[in-house]
C-alpha cells in the first residue's frame, strides 16, 4: 500500500453540491431578466448582458449596424472616457469583450468575483448613456472594415459562404451577413448608430446572466441598484422579421477564385429551429447531424464517403437549433484528389439516399445517447459555456424551462423520429448547393 501525506484540509471545507451550477432567475421592475448560475469552485465571475437585437433586426440598407454599434459601445459615456471600461477591467485583472449574432448582441466581463459591482456599474452606465464623437465613429468604421477584410474578403471560403447564405434565405434577413455588406458598412454613420442604440439598448430588451462564485441575493441587490434605475424603451414589441415564402426551387452556386487551393462541396437545407415550448423537431435534427457527421470513423457520411467510396478527405454535418427563426442544416465535403466536384456531390447524395433507406444503426444511436448524457457532466466544468447557453437561448426566444428541459428532449428522441425528420429535411427545393473551386477549373458556369 502507498502512504499519502495528509491532504484532508482544503477539500473538507468545500460544500457538497448536488451539481456544480445552481440556477436562479428573476426579473427587475423595469423588465430586465436576470439569471444567476452559481459555481463556487473558483473565485471568478462572468458578467454578461445580452440584448435581444442582432444583425437580423437592422433597418433595410443598414447592414452591419448592430455589429458596428457593438464596437462603439467601447467608446465613452457621460461617466466613462473612451476605452476606460476595458482599461478598468484590465487593471483589475479581468478580461472583457463583446459579440454580435443575427439574434443577439452580448457584452461580457470575466473578473475576480469581488469585482462584480465594478463591472456591473460600468455596464449599466453604457446601456443608456453612450457618447461618441464623429471622429470615434470614422476611426471605428475603418476598424470594422479591416475586420471584414480579415474575416471575409481575405478568405474566399468565407466570401462564398456569404453568397450561399444569401441564396438560402429568399426573404428573411438571415441572408444578410452579420458584419454587413461592405458598401453598406462604408456608409454607416453616427446617427444610424444612435437611433439603433436608443431603441434597442434598454433593460426591457436585455437579459443579464451572471455565473460563478456569487450568491443570487447579492446579484439581485446589485442589479436592483445599478440596472434598476435604467429606463425601459416604451412600446418595444416582439421581434417580427420578414419570413420565408415557400421555397420551391433548388439553388446551385459556384465560385472560382485563384486563392482556392482545395475544392469544397457544401449544401445547406432550410430547417426548423428550437421554438418556445416546441423543441422536438430541433432535437431530432441535432441527433441527425451527430449521426451523419460526427466523428469521421463512425458517422454515417464519414464511413460511406471517407472510408468506403473514398470520395472525401473530410465530411461533416452541422446543425445549431438556437435561432429565433428558421435556420439551416449543413453538410460540407472536401473531395479526395481526382474526385471531381460533380462526382463528390453525387456520392454525397447517394450516401444520404442510402441512409434514408437503411435507417439508424442502433449501436451508433446508443453510443450517441450516452455521449449526450456525459456531455451534461462535462458541461458542469465550464461556467462560461453555461452562461452562453442561457443568454443565447433567452435571446433566441426560448424560456428558462425550454433551456433546462432541452437535454431530456434530445434524449427522448427515437430512431423512427430521426428518420421521419431526415425524410423531411433533405428536400432539395429548400436547399443550396455550393461548389468552391480554384480559378478556371472544372465545372458549370465558366
Amino acid at each position, binding site marked *: 500500500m502507498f502512504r499519502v501525506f495528509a491532504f484532508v484540509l482544503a477539500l473538507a471545507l468545500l460544500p457538497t453540491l448536488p451539481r456544480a451550477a445552481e440556477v436562479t432567475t428573476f426579473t427587475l421592475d423595469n423588465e430586465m431578466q436576470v439569471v444567476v448560475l452559481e459555481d463556487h469552485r473558483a473565485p471568478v465571475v462572468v458578467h454578461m448582458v445580452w440584448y435581444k437585437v442582432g444583425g437580423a433586426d437592422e433597418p433595410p440598407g443598414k447592414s452591419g449596424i448592430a455589429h458596428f454599434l457593438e464596437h462603439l459601445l467601447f467608446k465613452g459615456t457621460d461617466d466613462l472616457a473612451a476605452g476606460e471600461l476595458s482599461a478598468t477591467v484590465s487593471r483589475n485583472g479581468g*478580461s472583457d469583450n463583446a459579440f454580435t449574432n443575427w439574434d443577439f448582441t452580448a457584452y461580457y466581463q470575466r473578473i475576480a468575483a469581488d469585482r462584480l459591482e465594478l463591472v456591473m456599474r460600468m455596464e449599466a452606465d453604457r446601456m443608456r448613456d453612450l457618447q461618441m464623437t464623429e471622429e470615434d465613429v470614422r476611426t471605428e468604421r475603418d476598424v470594422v472594415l479591416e475586420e471584414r477584410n480579415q474575416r471575409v*474578403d481575405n478568405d474566399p471560403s468565407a466570401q462564398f459562404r456569404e453568397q450561399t447564405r444569401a441564396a438560402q434565405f429568399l426573404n428573411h434577413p438571415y441572408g444578410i451577413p452579420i458584419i454587413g455588406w461592405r458598401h453598406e458598412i462604408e456608409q454607416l454613420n453616427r446617427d444610424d448608430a444612435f437611433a439603433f442604440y436608443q431603441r434597442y439598448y434598454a433593460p426591457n430588451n436585455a437579459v443579464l446572466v451572471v455565473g460563478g462564485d456569487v450568491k443570487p441575493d447579492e446579484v439581485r441587490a446589485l442589479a436592483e441598484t445599478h440596472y434598476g434605475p435604467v429606463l425601459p424603451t416604451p412600446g418595444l414589441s416582439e421581434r417580427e422579421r420578414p419570413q420565408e415564402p415557400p421555397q420551391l426551387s433548388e439553388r446551385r452556386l459556384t465560385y472560382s477564385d485563384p486563392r482556392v487551393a482545395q475544392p469544397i462541396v457544401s449544401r445547406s437545407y432550410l430547417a426548423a429551429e428550437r421554438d418556445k415550448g416546441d423543441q422536438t423537431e430541433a432535437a431530432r435534427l441535432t441527433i441527425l447531424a451527430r449521426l451523419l457527421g460526427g466523428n469521421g470513423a463512425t458517422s454515417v457520411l464519414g464511413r460511406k464517403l471517407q472510408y468506403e467510396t473514398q470520395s472525401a478527405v473530410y465530411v461533416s454535418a452541422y446543425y445549431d437549433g438556437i435561432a429565433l427563426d428558421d435556420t439551416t442544416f449543413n453538410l460540407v465535403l472536401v473531395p479526395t484528389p481526382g474526385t471531381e466536384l460533380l462526382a463528390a456531390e453525387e456520392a454525397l447524395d447517394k450516401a444520404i439516399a442510402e441512409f434514408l433507406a437503411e435507417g439508424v444503426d442502433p449501436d451508433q444511436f446508443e453510443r450517441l445517447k450516452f455521449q449526450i448524457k456525459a456531455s451534461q457532466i462535462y458541461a458542469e466544468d465550464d461556467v462560461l459555456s453555461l452562461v452562453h447557453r442561457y443568454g443565447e437561448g433567452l435571446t433566441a426566444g426560448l424560456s428558462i424551462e425550454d433551456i433546462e428541459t432541452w437535454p431530456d428532449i434530445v434524449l427522448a428522441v427515437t430512431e423512427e423520429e430521426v428518420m421521419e425528420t431526415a425524410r423531411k429535411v433533405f428536400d432539395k427545393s429548400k436547399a443550396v448547393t455550393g461548389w468552391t473551386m480554384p480559378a478556371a477549373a472544372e465545372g458549370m458556369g465558366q
Partner: protein
Amino acid sequence: MSRLIAVIWLIIFTLPLRAEIEIQTITTPAGIDVWLVEEHSIPFTALEIRFKGGTAQDPPGKRGVVNLMTGLLEEGAGELDSRGFSEAREALAASMQYRAYGDVISISARFLSENQDEAIDLLRSSIMQPNFAQVDIDRVREQVLSSIRSDSTDPGAIAGQTFDAMAWGDHPYGSSDDGTTESVMALTRDDILAAHKAVFARDRLFVSAVGDITPEALAALLDHLFGELPATGAPLPEPAEYQLTGGVTVVPFDTPQSVALFGHQGIKRDDPDYMTAYILNEVLGGNGQDSRLMTEVREKRGLTYGVGTALLPMDYGELIMGQVRSDNSRMAEAVEVIQNEWARIASEAITEQELSDVKTYLTGAYPLRFDGNAPIARIMVGMQITGLPASYVIERNNQIMAVTMEDIRRVAKRIYHPDDLHFVVVGQPEGLTSTN
C-alpha cells in the same frame, strides 16, 4: 517499497482570500512524476500528457513524419481498427486528442469516473500499440496533404512559413510541422514506426491530472499506462540558429488585406530576465486591449482589427514576434507605426504608470486562469515541462511585483533591437518593397 510521495502546495489567490487549489506532486511506484489536483464535485478527470520533442525531431528528409504518426494514434490500436477504436471511445464518452507541435507531442484525455479503467486501457493501446495500418496511413496522409494545399494559398500561413524559413533555414523550425507535399508523399510505414519508437519514452514524459481521482488511483493508472514505455528515446533536436536580419520582405499575393508577421530573436524561458521581458511585451503588444500597439495602430488610426506581439521561447530557439493585418492601401503606415513603437520601447522602455498598471493586470488575471479541470491540468503540465516547481503558482505574482524600473530599462535595451526587426508582408501592400 512505497514510492508514492505527495507534497502539498496550498495556493491562496491574491484577490479573494478563500479560494484554494491544492497541487499534489506525486512519484508513482514505477517512478513517474505527476501533479494532481483532486476535484471530486464532478465525476470526471482531465489528464494532460506531454512528450518533449515534437515535430522538431523529424529526421532529415522526413519532414512531417511526427505529425502524421501522431495523427494516426487514434486510427486503430491493438485488436481495434480505426472504426473500432472510435466506437470504443464513443461508447465510453471519453475524449482523447493527439496533437504534434514543434517542441512537444500533446495528448489530452478526459474520461468519466464510471468507466475510468476502460478509458485508460483504450488510451494505453493508442500510445503503446497503434496499428499504423497502410489503409489508415493513406487516408490520414490525404488529410495532411489537403491541409498543406489549403495553406499554400492562405496569406497567414504563407507569411508564417516565409518568416520561419528565413529565420531558421534548414532546421525543422524553418518549415511547417505538416511537412511539404513531397516529403509527406514519400513517407512510408517504416518511417512512421521509427518515429513512434523515437518520440515516446519515459525520459521525456510529463503528466498532470485534475478531477475525481485519488493519488493512489492515479498512480496505479499511470503505472499501467506508461509502465512499459521505453526508458529513453532518440536524441532530442539540436539548437536552431537564427539567420534573419532587419528589413522587409514582400511576398506578392492577390488579396485585399495584407498580412504581416514581424519580429527578431527573443529571450529564453529560463533567462533570469524573462519575467521582465514578459512585462515589457505585455505593454507593447500583449493580451490587454490597451497595449501600445493596439492603441496606436487600431484605436487612434483604425489601421487594423487586431495587432499583437508575443515572446516565443521555444526549446531550440527563441523569438519576439507580432502579427498585423491591414488593407493593402494602409499596410505601409501600419508597418511604420510599429517600427516607431519598437524604437520607442527600446530607447525609452515604459513609464512607471504603465509598469504599475500592467503589474496589477497580470497579477490579477493569473488566478482567473485556474478555472475548470482541463485548464488547470494544462497549466500544471506546462509548468512541469518548463522546469518550474509547483510552488511557482505562489511565487509567480511575487516575481512580477519584484520587477523594478531599473530592470525594465535594462531589459528593454537588451531585448528590443529596432535595426533587426524584420517584416514579412503577404499581399499587395502599396508603397512597400522588399529591402533585400
